[in-house]
């Protein structure tokens, strides 16, 4: 552990890594809560994989792949929102298509781009140790946008996610809010991509929130708990991967997965114990 803190003090790449981890945790806690509660994990995965298409095209055109990522993410989000409104019966299939075709397009364009493509691996599996200052600035802006929008639309998002019919009756712009939420998911995917890569984004997006959901009964508390858990797993994974010289993104995901497993088991045991307790004190009821 000591070496890690030494590295933290000495190297700016490590400081940036921790900063990126903090920013990512905020986004994953807040937006991950909506994803888990509204059960749209599949859609989020589709957006994540489609992002590679945008990055491939950006690369080919000589532009910043991060910009391509943001554009592709938002485009996928809007597309899925549109499908949900107009062609709901095909939503599942189109989602799968977006997932696979998006990635395929990205790979093709990357192969068409002259030059050595070491970045493909880092996009797929994260490169938290290679976060530059400009990238950190973009992450900060994305985070600020997400926080602001969630704050402004907090009650309306909750209404749409809990009871869409009622939200419509109260005159809320339900379609717009759903699209907006998907766009926020898209931005979060891009942020998380830096930490754990596209393939593993789903884990960091949903598992901390899922753990939080087992133990909280208010949306706001679930968001806070999810963010803290996400931060914990990210930092722990960072330290462990530094120590054992393993890829950071993968270690973070493994720790998060283990955490979820433990939380599930703990919750089961907890519920079981409570049930036994109430039965023994009251007597078995007929």
């Amino acid at each position: 552990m000591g070496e890690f803190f030494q590295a933290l003090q000495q190297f700016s790449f490590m400081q940036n890594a921790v900063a990126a981890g903090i920013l990512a945790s905020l986004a994953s806690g807040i937006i991950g809560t909506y994803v888990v509660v509204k059960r749209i994990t599949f859609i989020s995965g589709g957006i994540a994989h489609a992002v590679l298409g945008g990055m491939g095209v950006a690369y080919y055109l000589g532009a910043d792949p991060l910009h391509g990522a943001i554009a592709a993410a938002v485009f996928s989000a809007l597309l899925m929102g549109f499908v949900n409104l107009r062609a709901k019966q095909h939503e599942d299939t189109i989602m799968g298509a977006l997932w696979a075709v998006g990635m395929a397009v990205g790979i093709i364009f990357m192969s068409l781009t002259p030059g050595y493509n070491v970045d493909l691996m880092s996009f797929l599996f994260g490169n938290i140790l290679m976060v530059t200052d400009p990238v950190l600035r973009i992450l900060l802006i994305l985070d600020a946008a997400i926080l602001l929008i969630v704050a402004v639309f907090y009650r309306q998002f909750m209404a749409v996610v809990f009871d869409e019919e009622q939200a419509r009756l109260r005159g809320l712009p339900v379609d717009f809010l759903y699209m907006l939420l998907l766009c926020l998911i898209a931005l979060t995917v891009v942020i998380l991509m830096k930490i754990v890569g596209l393939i593993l984004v789903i884990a960091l997006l949903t598992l901390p929130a899922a753990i939080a959901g087992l133990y909280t009964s208010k949306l706001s508390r679930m968001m806070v708990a999810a963010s803290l858990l996400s931060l914990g797993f990210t930092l722990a994974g960072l330290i462990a991967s530094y120590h054992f010289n393993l890829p950071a993104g993968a270690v973070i995901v493994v720790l998060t997965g283990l955490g979820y497993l433990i939380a599930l088991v703990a919750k089961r045991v907890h519920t079981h114990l409570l049930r036994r307790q109430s039965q023994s004190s009251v007597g078995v009821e007929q």
Partner: protein
Amino acid sequence: MDKVISIEGVSFAYDHRPVLSDINLTVEPKDYMAVVGPNGGGKTTLLRLILGSLKAERGKVRVFGLPPAKARHMVGYVPQHGVFDPDFPVSALEVVLMGRLERRAFFPRYKREDYAAAQEAMGLLGVDNLGEYRYGDLSGGQKQRVLIARALVAKPKLLILDEPTASVDSRVEQDVYELLSRLNEEITILIVSHDLGFVSAYVNKVACLNQWLAVHKTEEITSEVLAGLYRSSVEMIQHRCAL
């Protein structure tokens, strides 16, 4: 006085399967009307047309003289309590407060009037001590009363309830109908039910719906009328507040 609901010559079909045929229905102010009929007879579709979530292919639907979508702010709607995710992290109070939402509701805080209205409505329904509990942890009857409170907080002039006493025990059922009778002094009430039994003691009109609609004053409802509606021999159970 203006009619609360006016439905003229309305027909509706799902993928060429007719669900409503040439429906004519009038609801006057302060009516307390039950819409009964077998499942699949079109009751939910009728509600959706009145609420504006569906548009009639033929005929006209007017609520307070307006197209349904424009009259929504005057309508309170109580869906069945079982349609929500039981694990959703929301408290009973937060559910009731959602009834006060509007387009310009920004940032997380509700206003003082919102909390006051929520407290009042929950008190009326006898659930004001349950505010901090998670909605999903409440019993069926408690959930239903929370949803009724949610429909009341915006002070609607028309209250529509969809099977409000399904899976609720008869004591609570009676309490709910009594409360609705008191509210009926100010508010027009429309209840959808698949079971006429208990509710007949309280309502003043019954609309029998099974693709076609016939309205009766409650006294006129006989077993023959009901048999025709359900197309089989039906026993009408008459409760007389013996609980």
